[in-house]
């Protein structure tokens, strides 16, 4: 037991000695602001992702390999980072050299890789957010941070929810989570939004419609 701990706790208890009871919060806010129609939710996700300058594409299982080949070619990427269990057929047509993540790769090594392709854990339509949880088709957090180009595949409708209250119970807080809403940005110069600072400056989101 540190003395700091005891002092802080004693001060808190002294400060609250006469405080009135504060009841459990009431939650009268909405659980969603969107209709339940999966197509409408997906359209809203698309719209909000694009509004924050993510580049959005739609495809199917049959066409995803060709789409990813084209996106990497248009970018001119020579190399692409691959998380441990990315579905193999996604990159089956792609040209760039695959770099499979290994623990020995340093941040400086990752800085030499042009692009990264991942899946995700969840997408939230109302805020235009994709959430990564380090699952096997995403890998550790640094993979989607150091390269300048991130392609993220979202399975629709199974990975798409409308709102934050719908998202929270589906996420596991014991895993490290990264919530991404558009490419990195700053408002630090005259409160004017500029896309692209330290994270990937180009974010492409592929909405993969499940059959």
């Amino acid at each position: 037991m540190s003395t700091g701990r005891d002092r802080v706790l004693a001060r808190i208890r002294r400060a609250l000695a006469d405080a009135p009871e504060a009841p459990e919060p009431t939650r009268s806010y909405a659980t969603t602001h969107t209709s339940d129609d999966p197509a409408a939710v997906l359209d809203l996700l698309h719209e909000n992702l694009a509004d924050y300058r993510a580049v959005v594409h739609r495809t199917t299982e049959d066409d995803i390999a060709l789409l990813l080949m084209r996106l990497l070619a248009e970018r001119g990427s020579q190399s692409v980072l691959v998380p441990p269990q990315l579905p193999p057929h996604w990159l089956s047509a792609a040209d760039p050299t695959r770099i499979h993540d290994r623990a020995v790769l340093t941040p400086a090594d990752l800085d030499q890789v042009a692009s990264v392709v991942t899946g995700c854990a969840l997408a939230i339509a109302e805020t235009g957010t994709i959430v990564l949880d380090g699952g096997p088709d995403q890998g550790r957090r640094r993979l989607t941070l150091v390269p300048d180009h991130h392609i993220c595949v979202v399975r629709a409708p199974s990975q798409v929810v409308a709102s934050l209250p719908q998202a929270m119970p589906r996420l596991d807080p014991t895993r490290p989570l990264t919530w991404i809403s558009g490419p990195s940005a700053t408002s630090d110069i005259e409160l004017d939004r500029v896309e692209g600072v330290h994270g990937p400056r180009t974010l492409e989101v592929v909405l993969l419609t499940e059959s």
Partner: protein
Amino acid sequence: MSAPTARTSYKNGANSTYLGMPSFPRAAHAAVRDTTLRANLKHATHTIRDKRAKAVAELGDWADLREAGKQIKDHTLRHLDRYLLQLEEAVTAAGGTVHWAADADEANRIVTDLVKATGEREVVKVKSMATQEIGLNEALEAEGIAAYETDLAELIVQLGEDRPSHILVPAIHRNRGEIREIFTLTMSAWGRPAPDDLTDRPADLAEAARLHLREKFLRAKVGISGANFMVAETGTLVVVESEGNGRMCLTLPETLISVVGIEKVVPTWRDLEVFLQTLPRSSTAERMNPYTSTWTGTTDGDGPRAFHLVLLDNGRTDVLADEVGRQTLRCIRCSACLNVCPVYERAGGHAYGSVYPGPIGAILTPQLRGTASELDASLPFASSLCGACYEVCPVAIDIPEVLVHLREKVADQGGKGHRLEKAAMKASGWVLNHPAALATAERAASLTRKAHPRRLPGAAAWTNTRDLPELPAAPFRDWWKRNRTS
């Protein structure tokens, strides 16, 4: 560590103490005569104000979210000891180490010892109000450890040997031309120089910062952060950011040290669904900020191998003990109150003499530090009580109520309080020449305040300047309500 001085520098001692800072009326008087500063502030605050109103209007249940946020915070604060102990247990179970710091010196010593134990001489930092409050960078520097700020605005402030003037955008008082000059003059002394042909386009300035900081991120072994929220039931910490510098500092180093005020705890994971809706919209007027990171202790093979959480009191329990003032601890540091404040807009952030400027600073600083100094005693008078700050607050802190409460306390101190009131009346010559404005302030106060002051708030405006537009005859909050969505 020192760097060349940019055009305007604000060297006078440690960031945390603002030694020799003039009291608010004198500092505000100087600031309103600086036309560049005023133009920068006016442009920035008006831009964000309109955007925020639009972002909030998108949610039909905003009032319910605001009420839930208020109640979650009130409930947590009422049982703060219990939730902190639950948090400590969860963080420890997840592989983290929890430290408790009663004051700034204790927190600085804990962090300094942790950094020294790694053998490293430099750290990368995520923007953190708590570490600014305790003057951590200076404490580390005194032990020979260089602390690099990585938020773009913090970088501008650090390179310019300047002081933060806004909670969210600490360099809000700088325009693009000034930022270009700071980068060109100072980056080379700290690491990678700015490009020779650097322009003042915001995109080019951001690119210069990206290049300058990347070498520091890639080699960093120790990261230091704050946190926006801590979840008691799971031991999860949350950092909300935009640029990706936070992700860099939270995931690339081997050791992560987070210094967090004890009031940042919330009971449950679910509670985040409220604050992650209200914070980004109030703060940057976005549906969601670009990046939010959450982590629970350490994770094998992903991110830092060692995680230390330093829980900081540093006066917060004094705030908690005040039955009117304790609502201040609900603050989630969104800075919406700064952006709508007519006094902040004209006086600027530096006049408040603290890392917490604007309306929230005017009530937080005197409670954290007490009102023994002339500056701190003057802060509760740095307001016209117009109530716009309360209207926009996403956790419904009644800032005018607390201001009036603190004015009473200062006045009750005796001679000093009396002198301050006289000084306030003198400095506010403008308001005395504009009786309608004074009446407006008093009327706004009388309309809305639960606790009525024993004497009328004497000093309504501190911005003694001739080109200040006349306040309308209607209470400011009514005027503001009518105009905010336009």
